[in-house]
């Protein structure tokens, strides 16, 4: 079985969760499956750690949670709020900046 990604992943789950919830509302298991799908299985989380992140985002007003009964089971669905959309835009901008910086560093000859 594959190991979870190391600690440098900090912040990435939040970005992915906001991105996916920007498309439609989802519950925890569904979100983890979607992360695996959209990242081609490159990002493997200890799946339980998404719940503290989801609760924290909800507490900060970036997400709203709603209980729904589906097939006899009560699930908690999460949806992005307007504040969450702004947070996503900000995080996405930061991510692009870091990504281009790291890419530039990796392409330059290591003569610094």
């Amino acid at each position, binding site marked *: 079985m594959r190991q*979870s990604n190391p600690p440098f992943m900090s912040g990435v789950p939040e970005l992915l969760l906001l991105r996916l919830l920007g498309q439609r509302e989802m519950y925890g*298991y569904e979100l983890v499956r979607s992360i695996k799908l959209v990242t081609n299985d490159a990002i493997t989380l200890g799946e*339980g750690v998404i*719940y*503290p992140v989801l*609760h*924290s985002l909800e*507490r*900060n007003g970036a997400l709203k949670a709603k209980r729904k009964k589906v097939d006899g089971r009560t*699930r908690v669905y999460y949806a992005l709020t307007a504040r969450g959309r702004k947070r996503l835009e900000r995080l996405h901008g930061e991510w692009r900046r870091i990504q281009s910086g790291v890419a530039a560093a990796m392409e330059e000859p290591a003569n610094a």
Partner: protein
Amino acid sequence: MRESWLDDIRNRLQVAGIAPAGAARMIAELDDHLEDLVEEGRRLGLDAKEARQYAMQRLGAPEQIAAQASRHDELKTWSGRHPQLARVYLPFAYVVLLPLAPIFAGAANAGIVLRWGASLMLAGAVTALMMLALQLSIALT
């Protein structure tokens, strides 16, 4: 196995100072996720025991989940966010508030206190009327 795994997380969340309502919902969501993963394991051809192990491995160790929760101060109670302050100041606060406990209890059960007060006044009025009647009957005889 499932219950002890969930209990372990519940205890660790409590130690981390996570608010009880939030922790209870998180446990319910983890339990639901676990059930989904067990079903997934069964679809992959695992037997019941293997499927449970597969599910718990995928969800991660209880200490990993509690550690992630502990990073988010907004999920904690006041005493969870300021454990040192709580240890020093809460005992003093309890000593100051203890004499006020009957007032708080009365406010929390205002309906009962009002009914009890009204019954007491009614009983007092009936007793006073009976005493008056007794006095009148003595005076008239």
